[in-house]
Every structure is written in C-alpha cells, then in structure tokens.
C-alpha cells in the first residue's frame, strides 16, 4: 500500500534513515513542489503571490522559533529582535559595500543574527522556562534600543535603511541580463526557495545527532546531560540556529519591502511568532507553517468574509464595513484561536496527524 508501513521493510541503512518510508509522502512532496514552484506562480495573480510571500517569510521565521521553543524547549520572546539584527546587517552590508551580492548580505545577516542570538542564549544555561522568557525579553529591548539609538548603524534619525532590490540573471532576447526583482513573482521564487532549503535543513536536523540532542534537552535536561550531551553547547547551538532562521527572515522582509525598519520587528511581532508556533503545534515543522498561515491569513480571510457577509446581509457600504469590521475581526480572531486550542491543544499539526492516522488504518477503527 502506498500509505501504510505494512510490507515496507527496511533492508538497508539508507532505507532506515529515509525521511519518508512509504511512497505516498514521496509522491505528495513531488506534487507539492510542482504546485508551489510551477502551478501557483503560473496561475496566481500579483495580489495572491504578494499574500503568499508574506506567508512564506512568516513560515521561515516560525520554523526557526519552533526549533528553539518546540524542539529544544527554550522559550524566546526576542525572535523579532533577532530578525531585525539580520535585516540591519544585510542592509548595512549593502549600504557600505554597494557591489556586494545580495546573497552574501543575506548570509551575513543570518550569521550576525546567529551570533547575537547565541550571546543572548547564554542565560539559558542557568535559567529555564518563564525566567528565560524574561531574559530574552531583555534581548528584544536591548536590540531595539541599540538600533533606535546608534544612528551610524541604523541610518539616521529615522532608523531605516532603504536598499536596492535584489537582482537575478535573466535571458532577454537571447542575451543574459541582470534584472531587478520588482514583481511579487520574483520575490515569490526567492522566498519559497529559501523556505524550501529551510524546511529540508530542519527535516534533516532532527535525524542528526544534534537534533536528537535538542529533543533530549527539551524532554529532560538532566537525563540528557547524564547520557553525555553537552547541555550548554546544545542550547547555544539551538539559539544560534533559531536566530539564523530569524536573521534570514528579517533579511527577506528587508528585501521584500526594500527597507530595513525596526518598527516592523517589535515585541508584538515576537509574540505573534510565538503564537504561530503554539497554534501550529510545538515541535512540528508542518505546524510552524500551518501556524504561520493561520496567523497571517486569518485576519485577511475574516476581512473578506465579513465584508461579503456584511454587504449581503446588513447592507454595509464601504464606510460602514470599514468602521464595524475591524472590531468583529478582532473578536473572531481571538475566538478562533481559543476554539482551535480547545479542540486540539497540540495545534493544527496534530489535527493533520489525527486525520492522516485515521487513513493509516482505514477501514479499521484502530490496529
């Protein structure tokens, strides 16, 4: 069977290590890749691609935070600050060294964020849980303050740095030219390629020694130490990897908006990313993406629905819809978050798992 383990034997080490053991997920991955990289950009209009770009960037950020919070069990409310480190590093590199390729600036942003993240991860050796959350809150505030006040770094009184959009090689009339990214479609490919790399890396991470160590530290740090895991190093690396993802996320925001602006990376944004992880499912890669879609799209989808319903049922005109809807939007947004967490405390990823588990043994109720 294509979706069941029965009859699927592991005869080699390679088969034992495979991420997907049954044919169905492999086919599904192929189909998803086809949809994401061919069909959606082909059919999707500029508006939809713009929305998907925001989801893609948020997914990468949520994935990074989930590695830290969901897999390693270290709470962080400074994720947006690490994004701003990446954003400003890339912007400063592009400003000071104008010829630099944007890809190097992006990696530079990721690395700088990783270093800063590891520095602020040092307290995690001595404190856990809510105490650590407060210490990462300090990171958020300190980084915001630094960007706000070191104007030589953050571009004058406004604390913003405009950047040139990234470029890509393109064949025009049989000639190789360099084009600026100026359409949502261009950014779509950039963002989803980076996201794909991020997902593949994360999937593989948790098959490796390091990823298993993360999970061991999360589940019981003392036990992990006894079996020979260097807790301090593991926690710092977790902070580093999560912050690297955050940095790249910040760089993608910067490229997409053509500006690094710290007001896009406030404490509220950090909390939103934490919400994505919790609603999507802690310790789940799929959950990070579902959470990012949920938090990014829900207000927008509600806006669409309420506008339609309000117009059809209550006869709202534009002015009335604009005045009433945001209030309903807030109420329903909060209500739906509660609803989903009550129905499935382990998040949207768990809902998906329940669904697939059902088909795993279908037509039997259980095995």
């Amino acid at each position, binding site marked *: 069977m294509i979706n069941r383990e029965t009859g699927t034997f592991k005869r080699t080490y390679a088969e034992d290590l495979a991420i997907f053991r049954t044919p169905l997920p492999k086919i599904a991955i192929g189909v998803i890749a086809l949809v994401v990289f061919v069909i959606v950009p082909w059919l999707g209009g500029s*508006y939809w691609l713009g929305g998907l770009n925001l989801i893609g960037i948020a997914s990468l950020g949520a994935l990074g935070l989930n590695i830290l919070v969901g897999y390693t069990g270290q709470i962080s409310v400074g994720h947006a600050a690490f994004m701003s480190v990446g954003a400003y590093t890339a912007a400063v590199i592009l400003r000071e060294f104008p010829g630099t390729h944007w890809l190097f600036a992006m990696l530079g942003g990721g690395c700088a964020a990783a270093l800063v993240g590891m520095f602020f991860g040092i307290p995690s050796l001595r404190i856990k849980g809510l105490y650590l959350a407060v210490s990462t809150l300090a990171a958020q505030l300190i980084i915001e303050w630094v960007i706000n006040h070191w104007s030589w770094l953050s571009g004058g009184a406004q604390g913003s740095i405009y950047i040139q959009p990234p470029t890509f090689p393109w064949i025009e009339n049989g000639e190789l030219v360099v084009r600026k990214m100026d359409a949502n479609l261009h950014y779509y490919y950039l963002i989803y390629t980076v996201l794909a790399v991020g997902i593949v890396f994360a999937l593989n991470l948790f098959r490796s020694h390091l990823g298993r160590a993360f999970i061991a530290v999360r589940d019981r740090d003392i036990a992990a130490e006894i079996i020979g895991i260097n807790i301090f190093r593991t926690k710092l690396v977790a902070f580093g990897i999560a912050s690297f993802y955050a940095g790249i996320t910040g760089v993608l925001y910067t490229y997409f908006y053509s500006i690094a602006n710290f007001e896009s990376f406030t404490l509220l944004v950090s909390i939103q990313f934490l919400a994505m992880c919790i609603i999507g499912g802690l310790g789940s890669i799929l959950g990070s993406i579902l959470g990012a879609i949920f938090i990014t799209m829900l207000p927008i989808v509600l806006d669409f629905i309420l506008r339609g319903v309000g117009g059809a049922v209550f006869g709202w005109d*534009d002015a009335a819809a604009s005045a009433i809807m945001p209030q309903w939007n807030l109420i329903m947004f909060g209500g739906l978050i509660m609803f989903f967490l009550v129905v499935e405390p382990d998040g949207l990823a768990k809902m998906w798992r329940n669904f697939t588990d059902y088909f795993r043994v279908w037509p039997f109720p259980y095995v």
Partner: protein
Amino acid sequence: MKHPRIATLALASAALAAAMAAGTASARELVLGFQCDRSGPTQLVGNFLCDGAHDYIRLANRNGMFGEGNSVRAFEIDHGYNVPRGVEAYERSKEAGHVSYGLYGTPHTYALTPKLTTDQVPGTSPGFGSAGAANGQSYPYVFPVAATYWSQAGAAVQFLMDEWEASGQSGLPKVAYLYYDNPAGREPLEILRDIQGRIGFEMREFAVPPPGVDMRPQVLDIVRNYKADWVINHTFGKAPAVSIKELSRLRFPMNRVIGFVWAASEADMQAAGWEAAEGYQALQFAGVGQNHKVIDQIKAMYAEEGKEAPDDKMAVSVYYNRGVFIGALHARAIANAIEAVGADNVTGDDVRKGFESISDFTLGGFMPPLNITPEDHEGGGWVQVWQVRDGAWVPITDWIQGYRDVIMEHVEKAEPPAG
C-alpha cells in the same frame, strides 16, 4: 411582417447597447485605496480620522465633484498597525485598481514607499513617514501634504520666538525639547539644532522612553533644574496627557508650552484634564472644532440621507477633521486628474500630477493655503497654533510657517530612497 419586427428589435437593442456603452464610457468609479488602524495601538486616532475621510469622499460624490456620472470609492482596509497586513492591504487595493492611496503609520509608509514608486501611484502620509519625503524630486510618489515634523519644528520655534519678543523680555529664551524617544520623536532634532545654531538660543533635549507614561524625572529636570522658559512637546499616545499633567503639577505656565500635532487632540486634553491644560498651545495642520463650512455640509448630508450625524466621532474634531482634510486632498487631486485627462484615462500618475497642481485649496479656512508642486510635496508646511481657552481649542494665529529657508535646505538634501 416578420422582418421589420426583427429589424426594429435589432435596432432597439443596438441603440440600447450603444446607450449602455456610452453610459459606461462616461461614468467611472475610481478607487481611492487607503489603510487605517482601527484595531491596533493607534485605534484612538484611526477610528476618528478614517471616518472623516469617508465622510468627505461621500460628500464629494454627492456634490458631483468628479464630474457627471463619475464617482470615487473609498476602499479602506484595517491593518491593526501590523506591517505585513499593511502591505497586504495595499496589494488588495491595487488589485481593486486604486489610482490614489492613503497611507497610515510610519513603518507602513516606509515599507510601501518603494511599491508606490514602482506602481506609480501617489500616496499621502500626513503626519507619518519621513520629513525628507517633502522633496518631490527624490520621492515622486509620496505626499506628506501636511506639515512634516521638520516644518512643525520650524513653526514651533518661530511661534515661541515671536511670543518671547511680544512679552518684552530681554535675551533669548531657554527652550526644553521634550520628545518621545523613537525615530519620529528624534526627527525634528536635526532642524532644531540647526536653527538653534543660527539664532543662538539655549536648548536642551529631554527624551522620554516609550510608552511615555512616566516622565516625572524629565519634567522635574525641565522645571526645577534647567528652569526652561519654553517647552516644545513632541510626544505621542498617552504621553501628551502625562506631560501636561506633570508640567501643570509643577506649576509650569501652560501658555509657554507648544505641542506638535500628535500632542494636540481633545482626547489628550480630556485625559490630562481641560483645567490643567488651560493655556496649552499646540500646532494643527487642519482646522479644529465644528465651526467650519465643510463640517456643516457633512452634517447636512447626513440629515438629507435621513441618518444621524456621528456626533461622538465629530466631537474628537482634531482627528476627525484631519480625516476630512486627507479625504479632501485626495478628492481634489482626483478631480484635477479627471479634469486634465478625462475620467476614463485617469491613472495613478495623473493623480500625482493632480496633487502637484493643488493650489490655494483651503475649504474656506479649514485648510492651510496649500501649494503642492512637483518640488514641494508638503505644500508649504503650514500649521496653525491653537490654544486651550476655557476648555476648548481656540485659534490664536493665522496659518504660519517658520524658518522655511532652513527647512528647505534640509529637504533639498533628502536622498531618494533606493529601489
């Protein structure tokens, strides 16, 4: 018998089709996209301001401002002060085919400036974004339209210098600049320091960290230690009310405090207490109160529609009127564009030109004598000083500018944003 009937039918339907075609050709609904914060941290501004804009656009439609059969649809989307949602709102409004755009919020203005430029759609950023955007050559598609923080700084210093002279005191005043410690709060520093260097008055800067609900040490420093003669108050949110309370608690004369445009609403005075605020002065970029022809017209419109006027919204007139101001400028610019190229051909770029040809559009004193040009997207940087007298805002100057030459020097230096 049969054929003539078919012929008549065909003729009639052809005539009908022609009439319909003609109808669609001459009537067009243009989309004015704008974003608002009605559910986020600045909802106490947004809910009043955006309603004002809607009401004016409706009024303009009723008055036939856009020519026979044409209308403007005000398409607003709430972003809750969240930047990705603001970007989405812009994209959706672009999908709806907007020809003009109203920005809301400083980070949104920054994030959307490159997109406005690429899409060639003019966006207004009254009271948000960067002061450098007044430079129309560097920022062709961004229109601050209202006095930027730089112009406010110039006007505030001009006003307090005039008052100082009028009071007959010798020497130059000691000025305290009390500001919110964020980019918007620091933006005027460049101008203040420059003017200070030129005329040589004494000035000290007092930063208040956000959210600015505690400024006892700063105010104590200003009043007791520095012994300032004048205070320039550039704070946001809850901070203006706190600053007024603290200054009045230490018996600092309120008629020697001048607030910038976001420290100037009825809500702030109410929070501080109108009595404590008695004598406080603030800059306004649109008329305050309900004694304006345009406000009467809006009320009359509600009456004609058989609806109740939103009195509670209109009562917060500082913000509501600013919304009317923004709506009026967009309406004027779109009307200019229709006049120039005809409703069917209007594009974002035409509306940009429409903005750039706004001159002496005052709505009967409700607005300053704005003159927006391709070089000056701020329209002159006019403000009016209003004072709290017996629990109400009263205008005490005409529309004024200050140190325009100094400000223009800085505006000319504003670099274009990359992109």
